[in-house]
């Protein structure tokens, strides 16, 4: 027999963001513990195992306005109900598409959403790591109106219980972007360590985020500034030794992140740090073609 899920006693299924905010308020009035449900890939197993408990569920599946992604002149906006599968082929956002592509299995990509990825905020969440590198903003709705905050600030304080995530927004890519990860099994298990690298050839910027080395993906500020100084922006190349140094700087930075994540077999802190350096070097080399001295002289 399957194990019955949590004892949720009320289910709300709004059809719009405004209605969702109202229903969230109604559900909370009686002091009930309310859970927002999007694709359910994290929440439903957690309700079953008892890891999460909810008296009421506000399900967002039918809120069609959350399932829209759009492109403006400078930015991309992705609704909280957009699934990984919806992002996989998106040519306007190759880095995001790549991060979505390597998530879990077909079943998880078809069901899991952007809003759920931010709600769960896993230490090595693929989307979260990418969005950390991309300087994304998070849009939320509550009875007090709409709000927009940088991802870092959004992650720093927990989402108010009367709010829901409506979308994320990021700048349109201005150069090459790469997402790489190392996982236990090739698919269907979250990453152990991941790296998102975003190069902006217009604004001369390099952004690097590493997932799986702390409780949230972290930006590699020192390594980023070092790389910016080494890039030849006219050709989009970087000296080969600078790629190695970049990897070393990433290892130094991640080794300083605390508190450490729990150690599991094959996932010691040393292993994660080493892997972070390897991934970061590889990602940089893919974005900016490494130059040997001979190339430089020609």
């Amino acid at each position, binding site marked *: 027999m*399957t194990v*019955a*899920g949590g004892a949720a006693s009320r289910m709300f299924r709004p059809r719009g963001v405004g209605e969702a905010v109202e229903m969230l308020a109604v559900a909370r009035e009686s002091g009930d513990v309310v859970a927002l449900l999007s694709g359910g890939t994290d929440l439903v197993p957690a309700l079953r195992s008892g890891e999460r408990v909810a008296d009421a569920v506000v*399900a967002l599946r039918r809120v069609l306005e959350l399932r829209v992604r759009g492109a403006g002149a400078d930015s991309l906006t992705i609704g909280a109900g957009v699934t990984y599968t919806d992002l996989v082929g998106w040519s306007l956002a190759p880095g995001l598409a790549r991060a979505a592509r390597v998530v879990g*299995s*077909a*079943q*998880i990509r078809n069901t899991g959403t952007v809003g759920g990825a931010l709600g769960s905020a896993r230490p090595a969440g693929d989307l979260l790591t990418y969005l950390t590198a991309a300087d994304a903003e998070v849009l939320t709705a509550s009875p007090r109106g709409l709000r927009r905050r940088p991802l870092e600030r959004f992650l720093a304080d927990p989402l108010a219980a009367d709010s829901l995530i409506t979308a994320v927004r990021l700048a349109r890519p201005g150069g090459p972007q790469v997402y790489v990860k190392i996982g236990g099994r*090739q698919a269907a298990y979250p990453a152990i360590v991941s790296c998102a690298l975003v190069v902006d050839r217009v604004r001369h910027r390099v952004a690097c985020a590493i997932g799986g080395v702390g409780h949230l993906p972290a930006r590699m500020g020192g390594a980023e500034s070092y790389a910016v100084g080494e890039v030849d922006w006219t050709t989009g190349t970087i000296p080969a030794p600078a790629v190695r140094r970049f990897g070393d700087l990433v290892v130094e930075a991640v080794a300083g992140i605390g508190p450490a994540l729990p150690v599991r077999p094959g996932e010691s802190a040393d292993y994660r740090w080493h892997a972070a350096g390897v991934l970061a070097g590889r990602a940089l080399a893919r974005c900016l073609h490494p130059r040997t001295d001979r190339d430089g002289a020609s």
Partner: protein
Amino acid sequence: MTAAGESYQLNIDGFTRAVVGAGLGDSLLTVLRDTLGVTSVKDACEQGRCGACSVLLDGRLAASCTVLAADADGARVVTVAGLGAVGLARAVRAMFLAEGAVQCGFCTPGFVVAVTDLLTRRPDADDEEIREALAGNICRCTGYGRILAAIRAVQRERGMLPARREPPTHPVGG
């Protein structure tokens, strides 16, 4: 709003079924098996990892253990039985048997749903794409070689592959 104890409806394999007496926190897998008696949908990990509970939800492959049943009200749920008695799904089932891709059979309904979904979208998928598309379906018996062979046989039988790319008639398998 749906309150505990109230009934709701699910569309399973084209039939409307009333769900009475299920908990609102119950997954689609639990309701399919325990409330509606649809036991082809298998229960193994209940964590979205093994694919034994795979169904099509509004046409997309999903693990039914990660979906709340009451939230599937209004959606089309298709299990292995609803894929059809003819055409591609029949060929997939037949080839799984012919090629020895079924041992204990526990994973088979989930695989048949996932393979039918894949070949509908990507009739000429190559080995790598097939393996990747089925990464969410775990089989503890066959070692996957026989399953891959069955899929290749379906592709050949139904002329899904461009002539030049035809794989050998007897691919190596476990």
